[in-house]
């Protein structure tokens, strides 16, 4: 039994480590690899009568990219990007801008706080 248990444990660890690139086990703020160019993205998001009427639901970028969001809503509200924890105030029918350097990887939803309206998500993929 002991040997079987050991073998099973070894199998488990092998499977775990074969898929787990240990060198990548670090918290975010990983430096972007040298020689890989960052891209700039500009997205326009327009919200009318509680609906997103312009702009993609999911913004896909790579780590290190620069992202600019132009947000326009027909009511006063607060635009919040989770994870990065950035907030911009929105005035009715006026465009507000948010700049993000996509250092953190993951999926970060953004919403209008006062309307409690989830608009979409910024997905930052590792390079």
């Amino acid at each position, binding site marked *: 039994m002991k040997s079987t248990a050991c073998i099973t444990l070894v199998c488990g660890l092998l499977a775990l480590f074969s898929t787990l*690139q240990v060198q990548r086990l670090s918290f975010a703020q990983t430096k972007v690899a040298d020689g890989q160019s960052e891209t700039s993205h500009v997205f326009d998001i327009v919200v009318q009568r509680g609906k997103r009427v312009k702009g993609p639901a999911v913004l896909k970028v790579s780590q290190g990219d620069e992202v600019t969001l132009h947000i326009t809503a027909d009511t006063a509200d607060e635009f919040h990007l989770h994870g990065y924890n950035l907030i911009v105030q929105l005035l009715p029918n006026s465009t507000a801008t948010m700049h993000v350097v996509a250092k953190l*990887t*993951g999926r970060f939803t953004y919403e209008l706080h006062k309307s409690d309206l989830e608009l979409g998500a910024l997905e930052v993929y590792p390079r």
Partner: protein
Amino acid sequence: MTRVAKGVVSLLLAAWSGGAGACVLGAVYNLPIPFGMYASGAGAALVVSFIVVAFVLRAPAATGNIDAAPSGSRHVSQLSLPRWVVSSASCASLFGLLLTIVTGLLGSANPLANFNMTFFWIIFWLGLTYITALLGDLYSLANPWRALCGWLEHASPGIFRGRFHYPAWLGYYPALVLYATLIWTELFGQFQPQTLSVMLLGYTGLNVVAAWMVGKDIWFRYGEFFSVFFRLIGKMAPIEYSSNSDGNATYGIRIRRPFVGLLEVSADHFSLLLFVVFMLSSTAFDGAHETVPWVGMFWKGIYPMLSNHIVQPYLIWVSVYYIWQSAMLLLLPLCYLAVYLILLWLARTVTHSGTTLPRLALRFAFTLIPIAFVYNMTHYYGEFASQGIQVLRMVSDPFSFGWNLFGTAHWFTDPIVLDAGAVWHTQVGLILFGHIASVYLAHVEALKVFPSARHAVLSQLPMLLLMVLLTTAGLWILSLPIDAGQLSTPL
């Protein structure tokens, strides 16, 4: 349908739609794993399965030891836990419950800022699950509701002797219903700190009344669902706690091999099998219910079909969407159960076993627990890491009064986000680890159930298929793109 009836239905549906929400604390930053990683993970599951089976089959004598290793046998050591340790843990646990309730009622209305939400959902519900898998069923030592009943019983002896007979057919169904209710409210309830406090107060009252009705021991074995949940998770741990009868120490500690606890006893009621299946399916549902294919099932499949025949405002369809999601939460365990039973039936048929299908279903039920556990961990550990640590900050100011009791009130002001690559690899690794454990346990159990080596080999093929299916499903769900803003753009 008359106009009045339509109005009533509309109102009911609108009320239902108040439950729009994702994870309670909304701090999940996981990206879908890339397809290549999903495919290699599924392939690895298949290869590893055959390796595990080969080792199990080559060592039938060794595996037999698991069956013949009762408490106190070799490789097992006995320790005891002093009474004061258990009493202190119970006091701390009851204090934690009280603090959770009071902070919810008096503290911040912001779920992310209130101590009670993070403490209950992240530290207790997620953190204790992971600790239980490592250190055993600590909850059984310090269950706050049981401790409360114990104190009430001390003040009024005989109060919890039970007024009514607990029918055998009821089994663990009360626990299952309460568990499903918690998961539903977690996924679809409009959860605020005050709501959680009211629910915990209600649950406290329910436990006291139910223990008074059917007896304390019966209720905390079959009805109090946290007890049932943590007892099942604790079976994976290398440590087991049990009551001593020597009159001095209250609890004994038994050290055993990891996962062996899952083979020591079988499920004793069909409702417990359903409970285990719901552990699997509810986490799978949570992972799947906001993905593009799942959401598309309704908005691109059901919604166009129904809206062509029934004219209703869009908000009504949003309500119908949530009803559909809730129905799927309850239907999914039946799908998992059906697959489980079909493959067990196949194993029974090819081996011509005399053991009945219900009996087989109970005997193999606990072998699903490692997979259920890693489903849970892969889905929630990011949330646990990012939000759980915030409790260190919140404990200094649990009521949001501006206190700084322990000097930690200004810690971790920036969100903690794990690297997506690390999360992906950990998720696949964990799923494979759970798969290996479940495959191993199922095959050891098969060797015990099916007497001849040939029958055991035959029986293991459907079981292997079951485990590979569950693992592949888990990986597939992790790889699905997540939908966003679906309610504003259904088509």
